[in-house]
């Protein structure tokens, strides 16, 4: 079986073709122009992941919200679960870039960190 993807590892967006065997294992990746592309393709067809970026409520700062991201990509299907957890959080200013906002979100082994100061 073949699957066609557009690489999202970087803004170039290479078209990639992934060849899978009957067991669903990757047997070939073509079209990528860098190793990151191959890694993306292999993950995307087996267990797709995404970085989640959103904001979290902050009290006592300049702004009512501060931006956050998952420190590493998380399983694509977990995005809305993570949003629910993040939306329930209220931080107290000051907040600095890199501060851990939620540790090990949804048990995924990934922290949510602040991406701006407030």
């Amino acid at each position, binding site marked *: 079986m073949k699957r066609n993807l557009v690489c999202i590892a970087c*803004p170039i967006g290479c078209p990639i073709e992934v060849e899978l065997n009957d067991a669903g294992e990757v047997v070939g990746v073509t079209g990528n122009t860098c190793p990151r592309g191959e890694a993306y393709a292999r993950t995307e067809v087996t267990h797709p992941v995404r970085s989640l970026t959103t904001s979290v409520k902050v009290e006592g700062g300049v702004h*009512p919200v501060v931006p956050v991201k998952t420190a590493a990509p998380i399983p694509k299907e977990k995005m809305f679960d993570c949003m629910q957890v993040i939306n329930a959080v209220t931080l107290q200013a000051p907040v600095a*870039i890199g501060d851990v906002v939620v540790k090990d979100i949804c048990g995924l082994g990934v922290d949510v960190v602040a991406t701006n100061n407030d």
Partner: protein
Amino acid sequence: MLQYDLVVVGGGPAGMAAALQAKEEGVAKIVILERAESLGGILEQCIHTGFGLHYFGEELSGPEYAGRFIREVQQTDIDVMCDTMVLDISDANVVTAVNKTQGLMQIRATAVVLAMGCRERPRGALSIAGTRPSGIMTAGTAQKYVNIDGYMPGKKVVILGSGDIGLIMARRMTLEGAEVKVVCELMPYSSGLQRNIVQCLEDFNIPLRLSCTVVETHGKERLEGVTIADVDERLQPIPGTEQYIPCDTLMLSVGLIPENELSKGVGVPLDNVTKGPVVDEYRETLHPGIFACGNVLQVHDLVDYVTEESKIAGKGAANYIFGKKKGGAYAATKGVNGVRYIVPQRVNVRGGEKVKLYFRVGQVYRNAKVTVTCNGQTLLSRKRPKLAPGEMENVTLTEEQLAAMNEGDEIVVGIEE
């Protein structure tokens, strides 16, 4: 009157990179004038990741990317005035600016870097018929409401234009609980990055309708719906294809326009296609001592390229300040066969350095060749698997290739299919 070697207008990624580079080159007195309350420019509201892959080799969010430069600026003696608006630049490079604390200031500058960025094309420029209720806004304005002010600008959203901001906002609104009904794109292709179509639309099953536009808005107070229609090859709506879509918000992502009011005020000639100043390889405009970089010069898709370009401008400004600008002979660059524009528009062929030409194409090409010729001689011919209007391209001319040229020569960049 205040006196600075270099006045940088705008404290976004372009202004900061230009100021930092000029500082590194040894320029003593530099000031950055920023109209917002803090440095960072539009990156402050671009909380998604994807910035810095080229420049830092890692994927950062907008505020993180900006944050690295802000920290660097803070570690230098570069002066920063925020909440400060430049009102005018005179022919003699006197910058008039105003803010609440220092009042009206006049600053004599040896050199000026224009880094004001760009603005979004509003609804008026599109002539969409219908009512004018609340709920029609540019994607960037909506982005500020959500990411900075913390308010939802809509719940049921239609997005017109598949530029990157529109795509990013489709995902952002969806994550915050809104329903994005459709993204309509007038052209037969998206002007956004492929990765954004995948991770902002496809991931959330948001339909992208190409060759489709909004022809009418409905609702007296708040927007209640829009009528969309397919368009023909001449981009005109096809009768009979109209479809009503109930929504409370229409977000527009229909193009960015370099903000050159100050440049026009001082009489800097602009390029008809880029809408930014005509510049040489150091991004000096045709007005001596005034440089331009970032989105005020040409709309970029990647901030990494903005940084690269702005460092060139910062170096050029330093050379100008130190009287090291090389006298020269200028060749003009010219885009043909699908190349819409080239920056820089002119190149000093006696500069003694290689020069990178940035350009954009007018349509999607697959397996096409980019060629560069001068005086009928082919200097370069390179195969590219894909060229798209949404992605800025570049070619580099070597010092030797340039040295062989003369004043008035034309460097022609074109696409061969």
